[in-house]
């Protein structure tokens, strides 16, 4: 009787904990400004990372792991977080060294210029919540949060249980290749830490001023900076401290970087301030940046090409291309390349180039044409012909693997497709004596132009909608609503 009772109690608690664990998995934060980087890191095979990158978004946005692999066969991983201060970098490093023995540590040093004693709650969560529970995680939280608030962060459920108000599809996609972070942005499950941007916004190039003075680094930052260098030295792993070029760099920051250079020398670490070498790197501030701090995919590729060359010429890092053990790095590089390719689509303004780009066999192209545009506009007619749509009048089409896979006939029509990240529907309805053609994504009608051609492009490799295009029948202008950075 006692045994049966004990067994019932145990089974009950197992079921309860199982359910709570799954609920927790749905509700937990999935920020890709720190949490997904750490969680994906844990899935790596031991001792496969050759170059470990630590740092803020300057690291995990601007350093392109795909390019490092493609051009140099470098198996890199970016264990970065939003505004990752040195204390969080230190605990990430400690965590990483439990399962990895990299040939090189790259420490992105942007935070050395900052003065935060503590970050805000969200960034603290981004930098600590991905870690597995251990004494190091406890120490990381203690270091990141004032004493009277620590209990708020140790009880993780209390922080994220109210996310039931904002759940998205990605919270339920646990084992698929494409994951979605808390803000709804998709990322490749086997990625190596990089957060990809495709948007391009021209920036003012900072003056390449040589600053010789030095200024003190914030005490807490310096303490952990030294601890990182000390730990690396203890493990006999070389460290490259680097400053990725950014627009808002100022004199004070440069002065602190100068001080950081001296500290690095004490530990026989290299310091590479790439802000001073933008010409050599070939950075184009008109096209390579999304904002003053972050490069887009193109910019990160350019910068990483330079960085990879520097790594190869100064350190002994193996070329892992062709090694089956590093298949995921190859897959990540393929994904990153496809992302870059998709981002190019957003820049096309000419109809001829657009029709060529839309011929990509990886694309599913959803097209809705209004009758006025097709009938009276020769350029649009020609464009549609190139897509395989002959004698286009009002209607809806699906182009898949570079051929017309479906089209509406006369009368009302409906095509519904369920893709990984989205439900996409082509609808043709007869309303008030006219036919209305719509492309509906996740129950929202998405129209870019009222009179012309509306196109939605779904990339089957990236498994997400990458662009919504509108071609205006009046002036043939091409308008893009890039979906890669919209979430």
């Amino acid at each position: 009787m006692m045994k049966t009772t004990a067994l019932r109690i145990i089974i009950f608690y197992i079921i309860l904990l199982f359910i709570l664990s799954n609920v927790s998995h749905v509700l937990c934060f999935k920020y890709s400004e720190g949490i997904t980087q750490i969680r994906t890191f844990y899935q790596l095979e031991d001792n496969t990372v050759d170059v470990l990158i630590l740092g803020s978004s300057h690291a995990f946005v601007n350093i392109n792991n795909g390019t490092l692999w493609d051009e140099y066969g470098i198996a890199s991983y970016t264990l970065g977080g939003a505004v990752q201060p040195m204390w969080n970098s230190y605990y990430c490093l400690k965590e990483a060294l439990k399962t990895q023995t990299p040939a090189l540590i790259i420490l992105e040093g942007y935070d050395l210029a900052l003065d935060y004693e503590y970050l805000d709650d969200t960034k603290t969560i981004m930098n600590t919540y991905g870690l597995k529970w251990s004494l190091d995680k406890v120490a990381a939280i203690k270091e990141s949060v004032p004493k009277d608030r620590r209990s708020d962060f140790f009880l993780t459920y209390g922080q994220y249980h109210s996310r039931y108000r904002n759940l998205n599809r990605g919270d339920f996609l646990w084992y698929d290749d494409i994951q979605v972070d808390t803000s709804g942005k998709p990322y490749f499950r086997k990625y190596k830490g990089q957060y990809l941007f495709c948007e391009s916004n021209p920036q003012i190039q900072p003056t390449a001023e040589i600053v010789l003075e030095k200024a003190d680094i914030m005490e807490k930052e310096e303490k952990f900076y030294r601890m990182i260098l000390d730990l690396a030295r203890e493990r006999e792993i070389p460290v490259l401290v680097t400053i990725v070029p950014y627009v808002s760099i100022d004199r004070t920051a440069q002065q602190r970087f100068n001080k950081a250079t001296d500290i690095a020398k004490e530990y026989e670490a290299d310091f590479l301030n790439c802000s001073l070498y933008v010409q050599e790197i070939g950075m184009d501030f008109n096209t390579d940046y999304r904002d003053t701090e972050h490069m887009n995919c193109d910019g990160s590729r350019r910068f990483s090409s330079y960085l990879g060359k520097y790594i190869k010429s100064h350190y002994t890092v193996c070329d892992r291309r062709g090694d089956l053990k590093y298949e995921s790095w190859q897959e990540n590089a393929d994904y990153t390349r496809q992302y870059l390719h998709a981002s190019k689509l957003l820049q096309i303004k000419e109809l001829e180039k657009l029709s060529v780009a839309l011929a990509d066999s990886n694309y599913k192209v959803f097209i809705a044409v209004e009758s006025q545009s097709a009938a009276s506009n020769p350029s649009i007619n020609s464009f549609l012909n190139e897509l395989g749509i002959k004698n286009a009048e009002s209607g809806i089409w699906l182009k898949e693997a570079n051929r017309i896979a479906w089209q509406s006939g006369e009368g009302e029509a409906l095509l519904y497709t369920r893709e990984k990240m989205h439900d996409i529907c082509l609808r043709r309805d007869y309303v008030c004596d006219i036919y209305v053609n719509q492309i509906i994504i996740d129950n929202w009608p998405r129209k870019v132009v009222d009179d012309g051609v509306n196109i939605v492009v779904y990339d089957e490799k990236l498994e997400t909608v990458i662009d919504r295009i509108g071609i205006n029948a009046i002036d043939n202008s091409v308008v893009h609503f890039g979906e890669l950075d919209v979430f």
Partner: protein
Amino acid sequence: MQFNSLDFMIFFPIVVGLYFIIPRKIKMYWLLVASYYFYMSWNAKYLLLIVASTIITFSSGVVLSKTASNELTKRKLVMVVSIISNLSLLALFKYGNFAIDILNKAFAVAGISLIDKRFDFLLPVGISFYTFQALGYMIDVYRGEIKAERNIVRYALFVSFFPQLVAGPIERSKNLLNQMRHIEEIKLWDVQRVTSGAILMVWGLFMKMVVADRVSILVDTIFGNYVMYGSVELILAALGFTIQIYCDFASYSMIAIGAAKIMGFNLMENFNTPYFSRSIREFWGRWHISLSTWFRDYLYIPLGGNRKGIKRKYINIMIVFLVSGLWHGAGLSFVVWGGIHGLYLVLGDALKPCKSELVQKFRIKTDCFSWRLLQTLITFTLVAFAWIFFRADSLFHALRYIKRIVVHPTPWVLFNDSLYNLGLDRTELAVLAISLLILFLVDIVRFKEGVTIDAFLFTQNAWFEWAVIIIIVVMIFVFGEYGPTFDAKQFIYFQF
């Protein structure tokens, strides 16, 4: 420390864990230490008050036990001194500033500013509860209903037992003290009893964290700025507060009863589906039962009850309910609230013959569901109306609130999206609706089957029992109002 706090989640398992394993002889001491620690977590220096109340009533009990039953004068003197001492503490800390305000308002009419200083101390949490509990014991000893307790530790534990210390139930010595006298005989390792206690605690947490704290957002939004709203919103807020105060208060009692049960003590039931009552009289038999029975036994009956004619009966009812209102809070609105309930009872009683006549004249069927439903709805409406006075910041605001319900109709609010701008969005309202449905189902079971949720689940198959508990626990974890972005609300009755 509140029951829905992290501190209590750590405190309780430690206390219970040690309670289970330490030798029987010292269990009482351990619970007393834990109870004092629990009380001190609110405000350490106010422990002196509870100790003072304990010593006064304990000593009174001892003196009474040594005084012969025919020494009436001496016995009465001891009792009166004890009552006055205890009530003085209560009066000073709870009603001191209220009395000053009343006096100042009275003398202000003559242009005199009587007292310009106010007492500068916080209301000691639970003072209304433990004072009454201690007084109840002392009166029971006086009446010879219970033997005086000679063990001060045991008596101190009775007064300060942490599960019911700060918000009831107000226990009777005949129940709780008697159980404590047999503490060494309690069979601790009783799986069903412990499970039962745990279920009650979980259900209490659900009522507090999922229902009460959620509906309070809507209530606070509207009551906090009622001049901006019209009839529909104001009625919704009144109904919301009706739910809030029930869930808040009943949840505390539920957790207290559950916690005590785990340790082997049976506390009295404090709430029994009050909103299914068919009359105000029945309502007071189901709402805050420990307080209403305390007032019945220690105030109403000593005043004469209904034994001295109809007029005196009505006067006694009004006295009891005005005092009850005052017990709830040092403010005119509370007194008015109590007075309204007294009036309900008096009028209900006075109009009974008239009602019977009307029922007969119009041949209204009274043995049917529709009649019972009507009675329940009317009772609920009367109770909800009275709660407006309880919740409003003052009597003036309560009256203004009620006036706005009448003069500012806004029925369209039910049909546009305005409901989602009252503090709870669509998702939150949906969660609230589901949790209210669960609450309703549990209360219906209690009402119809006469058993609490734990007893009901034990009569079901294991899969159902487990499913219900798991759903409630998961709902607490997911939908409970807690976490760093949540401003933890005290249980409403802590302010009394």
